[in-house]
């Protein structure tokens, strides 16, 4: 299982802040996870489709699409940041 967190606009449009996902054997990196979630359709496709401006982190460090994902990881998806 991995933990997936959603923040800010994504948390609101997806209707949840976190979930546990059992990783299918085919999902081994961030881009594959994003595609898996976008395939749920509706708001998931709208927020997580390949062409959307979404940032991601694996185990609390900014990560790119080819970053590996393994059981026990904490993955987060969120919009570009706007602090300061």
């Amino acid at each position, binding site marked *: 299982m991995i933990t997936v967190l959603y923040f800010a606009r994504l948390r609101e449009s997806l209707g949840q802040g976190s979930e546990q996902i059992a990783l299918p054997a085919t999902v081994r990196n961030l881009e594959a996870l994003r595609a898996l979630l976008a395939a749920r359709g509706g708001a998931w496709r709208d927020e997580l489709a390949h062409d959307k401006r979404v940032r991601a982190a694996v185990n*609390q460090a900014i990560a790119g699409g080819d970053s590996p994902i393994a059981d026990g990881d904490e993955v987060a998806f969120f919009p570009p940041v706007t602090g300061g």
Partner: protein
Amino acid sequence: MTVRIQTADFDVGAEIAALRRGNRKIGAVASFIGTVRDVNEGDAVTEMTLEHYPGMTEKAIEDIVGQARARWDIYDALVIHRVGTLRPTDQIVLVVVAGGHRGEAFAACEFIMDYLKTRAPFWKKERTGKGLRWVEARETDDIAAERWRLKG
């Protein structure tokens, strides 16, 4: 190095005094305070709520301050960032850098702020006469952070 994420306001004078206390090597202290404006994108803003990613936010800012310390000869740095609901004129963020001379202190303070704006996981939601909206990231913030790479 101190990094704090908090809902409470902060006292700039007290924070700077604490950072300087007893350190006789310090010859320059640079600080930046970010505050809530009453206007954004042409609309009056009455309130703003800041959300963050607990755990990652602290790590991201500690990493940014670590990069500043590797780049410039500074003695200490402090970053305080508020979360929760804030109103126009409220303080949002404080960055303080202490060094031997002003050049390093100014540069490191600006670097920390530019990197924080583009790399630390905070999100602002503001209330205007049109309702609530998430603040969109600005391209100018990416450009401001990027120029530090070019400076080498």
